[in-house]
Structures are given as C-alpha cells and as structure tokens.
C-alpha cells in the first residue's frame, strides 16, 4: 500500500505526479514528497512500529516507496548511546550520540537515503543508478547497486580520500573522477542526468532520496522512548539531513507519537573552511553565499548547498543556532569522541562535536537539558586526516626488560609481581 500522494513544489505548492522529477517547471523550486497523512494516521501506531524489525523500514508508511524495499532492507536502527564520559568531559547532564558510523552496509547515514532512492528508482523502471558524491554517498550507491544487481556510475571530485575511492571501486561501480569541486561535479551530473536518463539519486530522484534521512530523526525519537531531544546538533553539507530530521520530528508530533516540539532546538554544524549556511544564520540573511571549500571535512565540502536556504530556516524556526569549527578543532574533537566513548567518527563527526562544545561554552545549549550529537560517518574512511596527529607507538625489542623500562618512563604504578 502506498501512502505517497504526489510531489509538491516547496515554493509555489504546485503538485506533480510521483515520477522522477525534482524541479518545479513553473518556478524552479525543489519538489518534495507529499503523503496521505490522513490514511497514515488511521493505520500507523507506535505499538505497531515497536513490534517491527529493528531497521529504518519500521517507519515505512512515512518513506516514499510504493512496494517493499528491494535493497537495503537491513539499513538503520543504529545505536543511540548515552554518552556519560563525554557528558562529564563537556560538563553536561544528559548527552546522547546517534551513531550512524555503524550504519549498514557502508558505515554512514547515506545508506538510509540510498536504500530509499534505489528502491524507488527500480519501481520507476530505471536500470542505471548514479550519483554526484563527496564520498559517503559514492560508497553507498556502489554497494547498494551491487547488492541488487544494478549498474552504477559514481561522479566524485578528484581530491577525495583514497579510502572513499577504493571503497567505491571495490563494488564494481564505474567511478568518474572530475577535475573540480563537488559543486562542479554536481553541475556536470545534472547535465548527464538530463542527457542519459539515469537515476541520479541526489538529482532526479532527490525528492524520494532525501526522505530517507527522516529515519535518522524517527529513530532518535523512538530510542528516547518517544520523546524529542531538547537540543540536537547536525552536520550540514548540502543541508538536507537537518531539514529532514526536523520534518521527522514534526511528522511524529502530527501523528501524536511525541509532543513538545516547540521545546526542541536544532543546531547546524559546518567546517570553518566551508560554512555558507552558518554564515547565513549568523548574519540573519536569507541568501546563501556560495564559497570555495577548503577543509579536511571533505564529506561536508559543499560550497553551494542545495538545501542551504531551508536548513537556515529550520534553524531559525526552532530557535537554534549554527557554528563552525577549524581543522584543528575537528581533529581534537575526533580524538575526544574516540577516547571518551569508543566511537571513531569521520571528520564530519569531529565538526559536529567541536561545534557542540562551542555552543555549550557559549551558553546557547544549556548544560542540564537533553542533547543529541549526530554522528553520520565512520572514522575508518577518513584516516588520512589523522596522519601525523597521533603519537605513534613506541618500538621496543621483544624483551621484558625493555618493556619494564617503558612502563617506568610512563611514570605509572602497576601491581606487577616480582
């Protein structure tokens, strides 16, 4: 049973059939999926959701596919960790980490959007799937396409981390590396999508694709025992995730699953070397001024964010704020998260934690209310960022005496025998 009503322009409200369309023909605004909420209200309950398998499809009435998912049936329901050690370190009371660093199958939140996009693309009859990507999306499109036997093309900027390139090639995807920034890759991809008629998950399939991110928000609310966090910090690249988390919270409230959304504040995090949305929030501007990115957080390096305007709007609407963090702060935060909670997040996670620290220090996030930090990708993919930033292990011979000497030099006391 399908609950998709139509596609609807976010700007002028014109409706379109539920096809592979993403732009309003009339005013060029982006299209969004509209649902038959009346019917969902009648059939979906919290109890029903709770009984379903632990993956993102437990919210399937609120995800835009017509039949069952044909790829990525196991994606989602990643851990929400009560981060007590990190909370102590930051001096706050109630802190959680939503950990999509362990999302299935490619260790980032992109598996959520891709399983929706490819399942929907197959319903519409596409044979080739493609994307423009800063890396995580590339991995996910390649893996999920392989899993359902589809051909895939992945377009990336030439300077991506090696791990993300290898982690795309291994699935047999056709990877095309473009001499240019992500924004240039994206522009070329738009032209290719038009000419070749492929399913570009984040271009012509975007209205469906983007909805997958809502599951990140649904899960947080459910995992907090059907409560909304008072504060949530979200990394921003194109800016889609933050808007969809907000939409997820609103949908749950509308369905009567949670209450008190007016108390929830949403905060956006970007790297200082690519912070067009943060700048707009801080200056109170409706315009997003594109920038040329320069940051180690490559997964966030989108200088001309497609959903920048809407992200800034969500932040304002929820009385949140936005901040950015330098490369140095990003590395420190990655280490802090790993050392306190055993979570190795990618550079984007460093951005999000560093910004959270800043917002707490500024008093914008109070220390005694619930806070969720959104971790969207895995540190194993961005290890290059840590090169030269960690103290390398001491090298000794296989001799107990040398080890004793090492322990002595650490000036620590252990209850050693003999």
């Amino acid at each position: 049973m399908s609950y998709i009503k139509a596609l609807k322009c976010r700007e002028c409200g014109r409706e379109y059939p539920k096809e592979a369309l993403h732009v309003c023909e009339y005013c060029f605004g982006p299209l969004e999926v509209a649902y038959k909420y009346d019917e969902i209200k009648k059939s979906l309950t919290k109890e029903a959701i709770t009984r379903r398998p632990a993956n993102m499809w437990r919210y399937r009435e609120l995800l835009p596919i017509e039949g069952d998912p044909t790829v990525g049936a196991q994606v989602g329901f990643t851990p929400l960790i009560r981060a007590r050690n990190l909370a102590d370190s930051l001096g706050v009371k109630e802190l959680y980490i939503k950990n999509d660093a362990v999302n299935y199958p490619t260790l980032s939140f992109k598996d959520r959007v891709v399983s929706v996009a490819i399942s929907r693309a197959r319903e519409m009859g596409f044979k080739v799937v493609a994307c423009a990507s800063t890396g995580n999306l590339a991995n996910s499109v390649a893996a999920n396409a392989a899993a359902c036997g589809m051909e895939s093309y992945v377009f990336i900027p030439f300077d991506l981390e090696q791990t993300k390139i290898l982690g795309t090639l291994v699935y047999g995807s056709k990877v095309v590396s473009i001499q240019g920034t992500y924004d240039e890759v994206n522009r070329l991809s738009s032209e290719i999508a038009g000419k070749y008629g492929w399913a570009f998950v984040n271009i012509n399939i975007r209205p469906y694709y983007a909805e997958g991110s809502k599951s990140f928000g649904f899960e947080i609310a459910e995992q907090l025992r059907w409560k909304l966090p008072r504060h949530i910090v979200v990394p921003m690249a194109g800016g889609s995730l933050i808007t969809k988390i907000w939409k997820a919270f609103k949908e749950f409230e509308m369905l009567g699953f949670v209450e008190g959304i007016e108390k929830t504040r949403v905060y956006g995090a970007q790297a200082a070397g690519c912070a067009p949305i943060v700048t707009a929030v801080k200056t109170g501007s409706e315009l997003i001024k594109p920038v040329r990115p320069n940051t180690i957080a490559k997964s966030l390096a989108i200088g001309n964010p497609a959903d920048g305007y809407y992200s800034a709007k969500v932040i304002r609407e929820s009385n949140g704020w936005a901040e950015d963090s330098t490369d140095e702060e990003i590395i420190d935060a990655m280490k802090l998260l790993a050392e306190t909670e055993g979570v190795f997040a990618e550079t984007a996670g460093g951005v999000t934690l560093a910004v959270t620290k800043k917002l707490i220090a500024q008093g914008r996030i109070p220390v005694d209310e619930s806070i969720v930090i959104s971790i969207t990708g895995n540190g194993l993919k961005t290890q290059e960022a840590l090169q030269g930033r960690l103290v390398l292990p001491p090298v000794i011979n296989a001799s107990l005496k040398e080890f004793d000497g090492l322990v002595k030099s650490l000036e620590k006391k252990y209850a050693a025998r003999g």
Partner: protein
Amino acid sequence: MAVKVRIPTPLRKLTGGKEEVYVQGGSVTAVLDDLERNYPGIKERICEGDGKLRRFVNLYVNDEDIRFKENMNTQIKDSDELSIVPAIAGGFF
C-alpha cells in the same frame, strides 16, 4: 544597441525557442519589464508577484550574481549580458 539576455531551456517555449534575445533597459528591473513586453508570461516565471526575484532563479550580469550586487536595481548598460539560470540541486542548468 541592446542588452543580451540568455534564456535557459525551460523558458525557451516563451521565446519561440530562442536561446538569446535582445531587449532594452538600464537596470535589471527595466530589462525584465522589456523582456515581458516582448515575451509575455516570462516575468512571472522569474519573479514573485511583488517583483522580487524567485528564490531558485539566479540572474547574472556578466557572470556576476545580482544578489551580490544591487539585486534588481543592478545597473545594466548596452553590450552587457544578463543570464537567467535556474538553481538546481546546488548546481546549474
């Protein structure tokens, strides 16, 4: 002499298929008004009812975004070029 206006694919139905047209005007507003006189129906695709530029349409005067100049009041002189570019998913047509 006149101002050259570059028309994006989705609006060419209104210009009889023409990619480039020539109109008169000393500012962006004036150029768009003259464009509307010559190709009725085109202005409402570019501007809101109150004359403000639509959020997902970019206008460039000689490759510079007017939002970072003087917006609709940006001056235009003969031999300048005005490009109408819908913003799509962070990219451009």
